């Protein structure tokens, strides 16, 4: 059973804000140990999908299962225990301004008292080294870091507690192409080292091919295609290929003009 049960399973997930339908029956399976990339245009429902899985936004209907367990039926305690196994890299890193980098990195470990404050500095230096940052960065405040360094610190914070599921929200947005490739490389390394299941959302095709084993395209609140990330741009699905190539003409553009 466990061999066939997806790590994450979404079924008929729906969410509206006011009268605007954002998720209109999302079905998605993410296999354990795989890296899934969710593609889609702005406002297509990518972020809401991830936030629903994380418990930040309650969906209107549908089911979310992690390891076969219905997440939406969990009590607060059970949900918090599940969150212990999850890491998240936010689009803008979302580092805590009021804390130095080392406390940001070890925040979850300190909050759960899995580590003392004295030990946390060394642990932070250790994790920062895994994302290519010097330990001395630990004493800086997030405001003193460049965008790329903030992303790396955000990645360090996401992996510090060794989660078995990691979410990445547009990890390369706002970075130059080289730094984007560096972050992608770090993400692939970290996910492999931890043996984690990864779900990323992006509209950066190069990034999607680098970090994804599989890809899914979301359009108007529905998953319209799922397949190997390596085939992006040549999937045979007109909508996905138009999106991957960034072409003006195609089914997505035609629908927009209606």
């Amino acid at each position, binding site marked *: 059973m466990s061999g066939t049960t997806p790590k994450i399973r979404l079924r008929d997930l729906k969410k509206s804000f006011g009268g605007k339908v954002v998720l209109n029956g999302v079905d998605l399976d993410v296999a354990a140990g795989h890296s899934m990339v969710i593609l889609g245009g702005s406002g297509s429902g990518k972020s809401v999908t991830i*936030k629903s899985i*994380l*418990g*930040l936004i309650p969906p209107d209907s549908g089911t979310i299962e992690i390891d076969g367990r219905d997440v939406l039926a969990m009590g607060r305690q059970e949900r*918090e225990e599940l*969150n*212990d196994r*999850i*890491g*998240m890299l*936010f*689009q*803008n890193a*979302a*580092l*805590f*301004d*009021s804390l130095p980098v080392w406390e940001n990195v070890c*925040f*979850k470990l300190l*909050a*759960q*008292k899995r580590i003392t404050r004295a030990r946390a500095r060394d642990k932070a230096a250790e994790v920062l080294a895994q994302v290519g940052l010097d330990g001395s960065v630990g004493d800086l405040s997030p405001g003193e870091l460049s965008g790329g360094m903030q992303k790396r610190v955000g990645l360090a*914070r996401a992996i510090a507690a060794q989660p078995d599921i990691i979410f990445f929200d547009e990890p390369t947005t706002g970075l130059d192409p080289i730094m984007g490739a560096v972050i992608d490389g770090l993400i692939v390394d970290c996910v492999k080292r931890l043996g984690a299941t990864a779900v990323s959302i992006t509209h950066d095709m190069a990034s999607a091919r680098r970090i994804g084993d599989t890809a899914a395209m979301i359009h108007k609140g529905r998953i319209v295609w799922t397949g190997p990330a390596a085939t992006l741009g040549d999937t045979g699905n007109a909508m996905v290929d138009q999106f991957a190539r960034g072409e003006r003409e195609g089914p997505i553009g035609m629908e927009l003009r209606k």
Partner: protein
Amino acid sequence: MQHLLTFLAALGRAVLGLCRDAGTIALFAIEGVSHLVRPPFYPRLIGRAFVEIAYFSLPVVSLTAVFTGMVLALQSYSGFSRFGAESAVANVVVLSITRELGPVLAGLMVAGRIGAAFAAEIGTMRVTDQIDALTTLSTNPMKYLVAPRLLAGALAMPLLVVVADILGVMGGWLIGTAKLGFASASYINATIDFIQPMDVISGLVKAAVFGFLVALMGCYHGYHSKGGAQGVGAATTAAVVSSSILILALDYVLTEMFFSR
């Protein structure tokens, strides 16, 4: 008739909105307070908020208290001299400062300083996903951000008001002795003889309530802010305005409770 119905509909919407907001704020406060009695606790954050409120508000509250005491002495002297009651100046100053002006003015100063700071900080955390990040890091944002500030507000304000009481009375004494011709010893004796423990205690209870309110409104408006920088600005304004109005309204209610006969 149509105009009347439109007016009544608008009035009804406003009243319902007010009731909804009051309910939401009450639930927010109850949840925040409930986290104070459930582990894990964050003594470091309580201490940090306490220092921010008590220590860093000390200069502005002190200056306000001193000048208020000075003005009060001057005004009451000029008024009472019409009735030959100049000797009551010390009594009026100490009573006004301890019962009303100390807690109310300190509350308003702290509302401007701390209410705005809490709303801006938590509001910025909201619009930059830092509050969502707390949740993904297995930390309840209400427990981490709100509960420590509520407790610190309720504990720090009485201390500030003790200082405001002393400095306000000193301001009155300074003007009384330096400008109005009172003997220092008689002014001090009149002050000490007249003041009752309940005058000070009522002021300190008010201070604790106002401190809690300021922290609550700052946290509430910051926590629910949205829409980027403009939203954070609006939350900051709302925090200061709502806590100021609530301080003045609750001051009346608490005065009724303590002193009505």
